[in-house]
C-alpha cells in the first residue's frame, strides 16, 4: 500500500470513530417527565415543541391525566412536574404537595362548541347574538332553560333540532376535570344573580341545580379531549352544545384539514371564565421547563398554534386571522372562579350526591 492510501484510510477511520463518539456521547438533554391535562398532550407531542425544548436542554415526556385527578390518582414522586388546567386544580395540588412555585405560561377562555342550526335557534330564541362568525351566548337567558329542564323540542318554533332531549351543556366529570369545574364556577355565578359565591352557605340554595347539570348527563369523561372529539366525530345529535376550551377549537381549525365542518361554530358564554394553565415543578428539570415555557419566544409562538393565548396578542391575532377563525381577540365579560375553598366545597358536595346515588 502506498502512503497516500494508508493515510486516507486512517483519516477515514478516525473521522468515523469521532462521528460515532459524538453520536454516542453527545450531552443528552435532561429527561423530564410530567403529568398534563389531556388538552395539552398534542402540544407536547409536536416535534417542533420537542426540538425547542431540547434546544433548552430538556427532553420532555408527558402522560395524560384529568387535571383534578392529578392530586389524587397518581404517585407524584415519579414525576418532575404536573401541568393541570385551571387555578383550582393547581391550588389543590399545591396544597397536597406543599409546593408553592408555579408557572403560568398560557391561558384560554371557556367556550361552547356548537352547530350553526343550534346557534341560529338560540338567536331566534333571543338567547344568543351573532357576532359575525362567532356567537355570544347570554347565560342569564339560558339559565331558566337549564333550571326548568326544558327539552329541545319544547323550544317555540324549533324545526331545526326537534330532539326530545333536555337542553344540557355537555361537559366532563366535575369530580375529575378542570373544564367541568370551570363550567360549575360559571354557572354558580349566573345562578347566584351574577355574583361570585363567597361561602358554602351561599351555595346551598343552588346545590340541587348545580349538581343536576352534571348528574343528568350520566357517565362523563374525565378529560376535556374526549367531549371535544365526540363533538368532532359523532355530530350534532350526539353533541349539540359542548363546554370546551377555546384553544381546542382554534387548534383544530388551524389544522385546515376539513375536520371543522362549515356548520361547526364557536359560542362564547357571556360572561365567560378563563382557564389558566399552571405548571407546578417538583424537580429542577420541572422548574426549568416552567421558565422556558413562560419566556422562550419560539415556544410561546408554538403555544398560539395550539390555540392558547399568552402575552403575545399580536401573534394570536395574526394566527387566527391567517386561518380564518372568527373570534373576539379580547374578551370583555370575564368573571373569576369562586375561591379554591368554595369551589372545592361545592364539588365535594356534588361528589356526595353522586355517592348517595351509588356512583
Amino acid at each position, binding site marked *: 500500500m502506498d502512503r497516500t492510501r494508508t493515510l486516507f484510510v486512517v483519516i477515514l477511520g478516525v473521522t468515523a470513530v469521532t462521528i460515532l463518539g459524538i453520536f454516542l456521547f453527545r450531552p443528552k438533554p435532561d429527561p423530564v417527565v410530567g403529568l398534563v391535562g389531556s388538552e395539552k398532550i398534542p402540544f407536547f407531542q409536536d416535534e417542533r415543541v420537542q426540538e425547542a425544548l431540547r434546544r433548552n436542554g430538556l427532553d420532555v415526556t408527558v402522560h395524560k391525566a384529568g387535571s383534578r385527578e392529578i392530586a389524587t390518582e397518581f404517585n407524584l414522586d415519579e414525576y418532575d412536574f404536573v401541568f393541570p388546567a385551571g387555578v383550582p386544580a393547581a391550588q389543590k395540588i399545591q396544597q397536597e404537595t406543599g409546593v408553592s412555585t408555579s408557572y403560568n405560561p398560557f391561558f384560554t377562555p371557556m367556550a361552547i362548541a356548537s352547530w350553526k342550526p343550534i346557534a341560529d335557534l338560540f338567536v331566534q330564541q333571543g338567547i344568543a347574538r351573532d357576532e359575525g362568525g362567532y356567537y355570544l351566548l347570554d347565560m342569564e337567558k339560558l339559565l331558566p332553560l337549564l333550571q326548568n329542564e326544558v327539552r329541545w323540542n319544547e323550544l317555540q318554533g324549533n324545526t331545526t333540532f326537534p330532539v326530545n332531549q*333536555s337542553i344540557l351543556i355537555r361537559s366532563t366529570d366535575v369530580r375529575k376535570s378542570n373544564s367541568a369545574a370551570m363550567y360549575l364556577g360559571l354557572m354558580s355565578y349566573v345562578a347566584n344573580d351574577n355574583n361570585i359565591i363567597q361561602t358554602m352557605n351561599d351555595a346551598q340554595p343552588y346545590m340541587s341545580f348545580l349538581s343536576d347539570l352534571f348528574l*343528568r*348527563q*350520566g357517565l*362523563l369523561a374525565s378529560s376535556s379531549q374526549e367531549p371535544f*372529539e365526540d363533538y368532532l366525530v359523532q355530530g350534532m345529535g350526539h353533541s349539540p352544545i359542548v363546554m370546551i376550551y377555546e384553544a381546542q377549537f382554534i387548534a383544530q381549525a388551524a389544522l385546515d*384539514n376539513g375536520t371543522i365542518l362549515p356548520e361547526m361554530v364557536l359560542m362564547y358564554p357571556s360572561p365567560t371564565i378563563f382557564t389558566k394553565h399552571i405548571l407546578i415543578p417538583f424537580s429542577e428539570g420541572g422548574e426549568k421547563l416552567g421558565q422556558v415555557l413562560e419566556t422562550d419566544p419560539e415556544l410561546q409562538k408554538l403555544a398560539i398554534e395550539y390555540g392558547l393565548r399568552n402575552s403575545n396578542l399580536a401573534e394570536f391575532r395574526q394566527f387566527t386571522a391567517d386561518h380564518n377563525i372568527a373570534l373576539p381577540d379580547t374578551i370583555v365579560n370575564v368573571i373569576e372562579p369562586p375561591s379554591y375553598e368554595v369551589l372545592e366545597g361545592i364539588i365535594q358536595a356534588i361528589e356526595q350526591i*353522586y355517592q348517595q346515588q351509588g356512583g
Partner: protein
Amino acid sequence: MSSKRYFPFFLLLITFSLILLLIPGCSLVSGAETMTVLAGSELKDIEPLLDQIEKETGVRLQFEYIGTLDGAEKLLSGAEYDLAWFSHGKYLTLLQGGRGLVVTQEKTMLSPVIMGIKESKAREFGWVDNPNVTWQDIADKASSGELRYAMTNPAASNSGFTALIGVATALTGSSDAINAGDVNVPALQAFFKGQALTAGSSGWLAENYVSAEDDLDGLINYESVLLSLNESGDLREDLVLIYPKEGIITADYPLMLLNAEKQEQYDTLITYLRSPEFQEEMMRTTLRRPVVPGIQLDGRIPNPLLVELPFPNSVDIIDSLLFSYLDEQRVPAHAIFVLDVSGSMEGNGITDLKTAMNNLTGLDSSLTGRFARFREREMITVIAFSDYVQTVQVFTIDDANSQGEAMQEVRTFVNRLDADGGTAIYTALTEAYRLAQEAQQQDPDRYYSIVLMSDGENTDGLSPRDFQRYYEGLPAEARNIRTFTVLFGNADEDTMTDIADLTGGRVFDSTEESLSLIFKQIRGYQ
C-alpha cells in the same frame, strides 16, 4: 482500482452496522412483542387485521375472548392481562371504583346498538326511511305480538347490555340519565315481550338469526353486525336499520391499558389504531365507524342524525336495571335441565354436577353468580336419567332468596341424586321435549330451553333416529325450543353436536372448564 482497495471500507461498514445494531432503539432486528388482551367476542372481526397491527407497531395482540360480566369479574379478581378491549368500558370503569385497574383508555372505533327489521315488516309498519320511529313504537309492536326479535341477554353480552340501558333510558320519557326509581317496568315488559331469541353472545345471536330468519322479524345488535349481515348474502330478506328517535347508545370500543409497565407499547399501539390508515381499513372490513375526525364515512354506513342517550353513572343503577330485566321485564324462563346420572358419573362427576346446580340456587355470590342464578318467576324442570328417566321434578321460583323455600327444594332434590346405570340420552331428551311441549301449550308466554348434560355415549333406550322423528313431528313452537348440550367427562361429541345442530342450540365444552362455569354461561341462553 482493485477490489482490495475497498477492503478497509467494508471493514468500517461492518463495524458501523454492528454498532448501530447494539444501540438500543436502533435495533434493526427486533422480534414482535406479545401483549395479552382480554376481549369481548365482538372483537373477533379484528383478527384479520392483527398481522397488519403487528407489522406497523411491533406488537402482537393475543386475544382471549370472554363475556361482559365474566370479563369484569376476571379482571377484578386479579387476572393479569396487558390490555382489555370490549365494545365499551363503562361498566368496568364504574366497577373498578378507586382500584385503578385501568391505567388509561382510548376509544378505537364506534358502532351504535340499534335494531334491524326485515324489510317486509318495516314496510308493513311504515318504518322504511322513517326518522320518527321510537323505542316506544317498537315496544308497542312487540307487545301486540307483531314484532319478534332476537337480542342477547344483557347480563351476559355487551350488545344486550347496551340495548337494555338505551331502551330503559328512552322509555322513562325523561331522556336524562336514568335513576333506579325511573325504570318504567310495564313499558319494558311490553318491549321484551317481543324477545323471541336470547343468547349469551352477539356473534352467536347474529349467526342464529340467519338460521331462524323465518321465525323472527329482526334483531338488536351493533350497527356493524347488522350491516355485515346485509352484506353477507346469507339473509333471504334484507334488514332495515332503525335508529329510534329518542336516541341510541354507541359502543366505542376503548382499548384499556391494564399493565402500567407496557405504557410505551400501548402508546405505539393506540397511535396506530387511531391513525387514518387503520381507521379506514377497520371501517372497510368491519363496517364500524371511525373514531377520529376527518375520515369520510364509508358509503355503506347510513348517516342519520344520531342522538346519543346518556349512560348511567353508577354501578348500583346498572345492577338494579339488570336485576329488574331478569326478575321483572323479560319473558320469564322455563329452563329444562336434562342431567346424566349414569354410573360413570359416580365420584367427582356427580359432585361437580351437584355443585353446579347448587350454585344456581344462589350459593355462588360472585358477580357472575349473582346474575346467573335462578330468577324470580322462573320455572325449572330437572330430568335425571341413566338407562331410563329416573326422576322428573318441576320447581317454581316464586321466591328467589337463596335461603327461600323454592331454592331449598331444588338443593334438596339435586343433593339426593345418585349415579348408577347406563345412559339413555335420546329417551331422556324425548321426555324433555314432551314435557316442554305440554308446558308450552299451557303457558305459551314463557321462554323455553333445554340443557342436556352427559358424560358418555348413548347406551340404552331410543335411538338418534327415534328422537329425530319425534322432534320433527313436534309443532313449530316446540321445535323452536333449543337444546344446549354440555360435554362432560367422556361425552360423545358427535351425539352432542348433532343434537345441538338439529335443535338450533349450541355445544358447550366442560371437559376443560368447570361445570359450574359452563352452567353459568348457558344461563345467558335461557
